[in-house]
């Protein structure tokens, strides 16, 4: 099956008075229809930025300086503005981190839902309202008809995020970019919201690009995962494989730093140093200064993603031509 979204060598720069800073460097990945691909990494690794680039909502001063984004066989990064607008919501949806600030405080939930639906689908007001009620009920909100008349500040955090999910799904997109959807929520609510997201996506065959710094969330919900570091993807593959047998030293470090629920509680692995800021990225492999297994080549040449079983890893360790 051909991929729903294909991102090829995406580069995003930030223009500032010190010159351009490269924020995303040669990012490539694909998402199949109905698949959930997780993006994990530290703050500043470029996960959210990748999502913003796909949906065409980069922050001011950031622009795409290379690569292509192909959705459903069609290139979308060079489309005129109103074509991109038509894509958003209808084909590609987005969920952002903070549910309170994502909702316009001056409009009722119902108004915002109906507006979204009627922008993309040919519905009468009554039809839209009834669909809105159905949608809210699907997201697990009780008394949906009442809720339509309420304002965002009258709902709790978990409820609001359900509303945000409902809004993102209102026009029935085929791909949803979920940027840290549970980070701003209580732990008890997090699990509920993730379960909801999973269920809705499975029911509708929607693909999801899930951005988070929480590996646990990825482990539970995603099919595949991409590990990002310093604006690059360093490893990408099936979730099971990446977690149980990480191919890239950085991923291994990440896994090691998660305390095990069962078994021996040994020392937590810590990776010395910290992720480099944009503009200060070392030559060659970005991770080499912190890697325990590097050698000269890592300093000079930047590794591309190379096959390791079902995953791919950007590390010279897995160079097929390497002997020994």
């Amino acid at each position, binding site marked *: 099956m051909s991929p729903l979204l294909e991102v090829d060598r995406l580069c995003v720069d930030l223009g500032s008075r010190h010159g351009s800073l490269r924020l995303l460097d040669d990012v490539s990945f694909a998402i199949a229809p109905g698949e959930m691909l997780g993006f994990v990494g530290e703050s500043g690794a470029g996960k959210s930025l990748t999502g913003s680039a796909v*949906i065409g*909502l980069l922050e001011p001063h950031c622009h795409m300086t290379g690569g292509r984004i192909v959705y459903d066989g069609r290139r979308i990064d060079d489309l005129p503005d109103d074509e991109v*607008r*038509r*894509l*958003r*919501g*209808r084909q590609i*949806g*987005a969920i*952002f981190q*903070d549910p309170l*600030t*994502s*909702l*316009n*405080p*001056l*409009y*009722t939930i*119902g*108004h915002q839902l*109906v*507006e*979204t639906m009627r*922008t*993309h689908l040919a519905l009468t*007001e*009554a039809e839209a*309202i009834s669909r809105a009620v159905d949608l809210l009920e699907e997201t697990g909100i*009780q*008394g949906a008809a009442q809720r*339509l*008349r*309420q*304002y965002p*500040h*009258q*709902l*709790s955090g*978990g*409820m609001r995020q359900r509303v*945000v999910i409902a*809004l*993102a799904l*209102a*026009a029935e997109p085929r791909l949803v970019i979920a940027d840290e959807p549970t980070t701003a929520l209580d732990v008890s609510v997090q699990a509920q919201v993730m379960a909801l997201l999973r269920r809705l996506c499975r029911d509708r065959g929607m693909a999801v690009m899930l951005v988070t710094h929480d590996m646990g969330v990825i482990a539970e919900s995603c099919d595949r995962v991409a590990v990002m570091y310093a604006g690059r993807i360093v490893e990408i593959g099936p979730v099971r494989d990446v977690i149980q047998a990480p191919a890239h030293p950085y991923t291994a470090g990440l896994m090691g730093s998660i305390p095990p629920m069962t078994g021996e509680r040994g020392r937590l692995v810590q990776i010395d140093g910290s992720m480099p800021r944009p503009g200060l990225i070392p030559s060659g492999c970005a991770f080499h200064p912190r890697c325990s297994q590097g050698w000269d080549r890592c300093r000079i040449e930047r590794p591309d993603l190379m096959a390791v079983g079902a995953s791919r890893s950007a590390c010279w360790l897995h160079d097929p031509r390497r002997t020994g």
Partner: protein
Amino acid sequence: MAARQNLRFLLISVRHPTSSMLVFIVRRLAQAVLVMLTVALVSFVLFQFVGDPVTNLLGQDATPGQREQLRRDLGLDQSAPTQFVRFVGNAVQGDFGLSLRQGRQVSSLIAERLPATLELSLVAAVLALALGVPLGVYAALRRDGFWAHCLMAVSLLGVSLPTFLIGIGMIMVFSVTLNWLPSFGRGEVVRLGAWSTGLLTADGWRHLVLPATTLAIFQLTLIMRLVRAEMIEVLRTDYIRFARARGLTNRSVYFGHALKNTKVPVITVTGLQLGSLIAFSIITETVFQWPGMGLLFIQAVQFADIPVMAAYLCLVALIFVLINLAVDLLYFAIDPRLRAAGFGEATVP
């Protein structure tokens, strides 16, 4: 269409207990009364202790006998608080004594001049709003465009030009050089009972154009800059980003979501600004010799005519307080978060 309106209304219907709104109104009224009393106190102090209250009331040509009589009548031998109460009582009825300069009842002087000032201010306010808001929105949406930059540059000029200079400039261009429009007075006025209006005659309008425009320019630039700044702030928010992510049309995003969210701060500031029009009219009336309250006030200050000054102060304070109250109520009507604030709807987890 009607069905749509009904459903919309249903959707956006405000279900709030009436008591929270009532509480709010009562509280604001109490505050208003407090402010008015403070202003009355200041006026009272002016009246009694700056200059001679007897002279203030009787004018300068009173005989010593009349003065003595009045002194007893006024109870000037009584305690200050009692006198204050009497002052407030008189003030509420509009009695501020006699103007020192003109020897007439202050209240009738003001009543004579009020319509002129109110008409001027109203026309200027409408002008400032009608032009300021759209221009501000335009300057925000087309931030980097050539015209937007021009607008901002011109607005800076507008803020740096004192009103009286604008007035003089207008007179120079339109009266002296071009001779299109008159430069002083109100022209023909029509009396409607106690009110005299210049809005019903072409001559009245001709006289109104220059002063109203002069008065409006400062407010216009302020409103334009404010609207632009607020729009830009709002366009940066998460919910606008989410609205765009949902693929809403530009029209929806800009005018449905963004503009609506700028309404609250804009209304607040605009309301206050409209109040200050009354004050700025002092200058405009002086430049154009417009026979309004402002001109009266300036003459009072030049002459140290205390009763007129005191009366003007109270009247202007009243207008301001009323405008503030209206703005608060409007605020309350627009922002749903305020409605729940008094009572707080129980949030269901």
